[in-house]
């Protein structure tokens, strides 16, 4: 547990410094952990675990757009848990749950990683269709065509800075839609 946290923290630090490979490895490895927490939180609240993947994807976007709020000298897992808890409570409230979430119990849960199919009920790329044209083009280029920010900038005749601004806004818009839809 402790070793894993240290490894994840190291990858996150590398990711913050611009190491895409370490960052991809981190997101890949922590996804089963997030999925397990989301499923256990949903089932504790008496909700269907089928919605877990929407929360996982929302959390991944939040990890990315809010990553500078993590303090690199501190362990990563408490920050991850806090982000997941925030998104889970938000999702439960939006779905008109009684609002009863046993947070302390949830925070102590150590769920087993799950191997369920990892497809969200809502498709992020389809949701992107309702974004402004520039943001939609950037999201499509990076999430469907597999371009990085530089290739996207070249393909769309934009500056790389403009691509990152459009991506950031697009992700924020997607997160909002993901929350509204679930």
């Amino acid at each position, binding site marked *: 547990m402790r070793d894993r946290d240290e490894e994840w923290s190291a990858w996150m630090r590398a990711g913050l*410094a611009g190491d895409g490979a370490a960052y991809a490895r981190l997101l890949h490895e922590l996804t089963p952990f997030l999925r397990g927490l989301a499923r256990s939180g949903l089932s504790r609240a008496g909700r269907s675990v089928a919605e877990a993947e929407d929360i996982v994807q929302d959390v991944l976007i939040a990890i990315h757009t809010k990553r500078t709020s993590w303090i690199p000298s501190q362990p990563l897992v408490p920050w991850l848990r806090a982000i997941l808890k925030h998104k889970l409570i938000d999702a439960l409230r939006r779905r008109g749950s009684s609002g009863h979430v046993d947070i302390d119990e949830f925070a102590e849960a150590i769920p087993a990683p799950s191997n369920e199919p990892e497809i969200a009920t809502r498709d992020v790329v389809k949701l992107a269709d309702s974004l402004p044209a520039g943001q939609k083009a950037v999201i499509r280029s990076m999430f469907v065509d597999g371009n*990085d920010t530089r290739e996207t900038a070249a393909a769309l005749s934009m500056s790389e800075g403009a691509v990152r601004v459009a991506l950031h806004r697009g992700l924020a818009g997607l997160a909002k839609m993901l929350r509204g839809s679930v």
Partner: protein
Amino acid sequence: MKTEDLIAGLARDAKAAGPSLHGRLMIAAAAAATVAFALMMLSIGTRPDLASAMGTVLFGQKLLLVATLAVAALALLRAAARPEADLPKSVLVLPALIFLFGVGHEVATQPAAVFGARLVGNNSALCLVAIPLLATAPLAIFLAALRRGAPQSAMQAGALAGFAAGTIAAFFYGLHCADDSPFFVVTWYTIGVALMSAAGALLGRRMLAW
């Protein structure tokens, strides 16, 4: 979309993430103080007897009270901007002690008959207008910096942004205002700062939800 595809897309944006949230908030605090100071100097200016007031206990405790409150507000805001949001409430102890000292000093040096007059003072109307006006740009600066934040409660983070902006504005307003009695400060400064906190809470709830 599969989660793996989302991860791959996010990782393609892994270029250096820029300053930390804490760094952004400290830059915002410096900018907010600069703007509030400049606005104060360009509009109402410092009090004419600033040099002699500097030596008095009452003026000193007033500025110290507001300055320690501004530092406390920043510490609380920094914590509230993060998802773990464990607020370091102990930072409020020092301002509270300074306030109690001020009240004790006032009670010891002034006859009870003038307490009411000292509470009302001469500048209450200006105080109520000046603190929110000086605090408006600082609040905007803090809210902008907080957009990269992940506050546990958007409303709480917004309220603390307003509290920080209000106390910074109150500090520079305090260089103008000649009413140094803690009775005046606790009444009128509090109203001005509370207005900013309420405005920050309302704006934060809309702008900082994530």
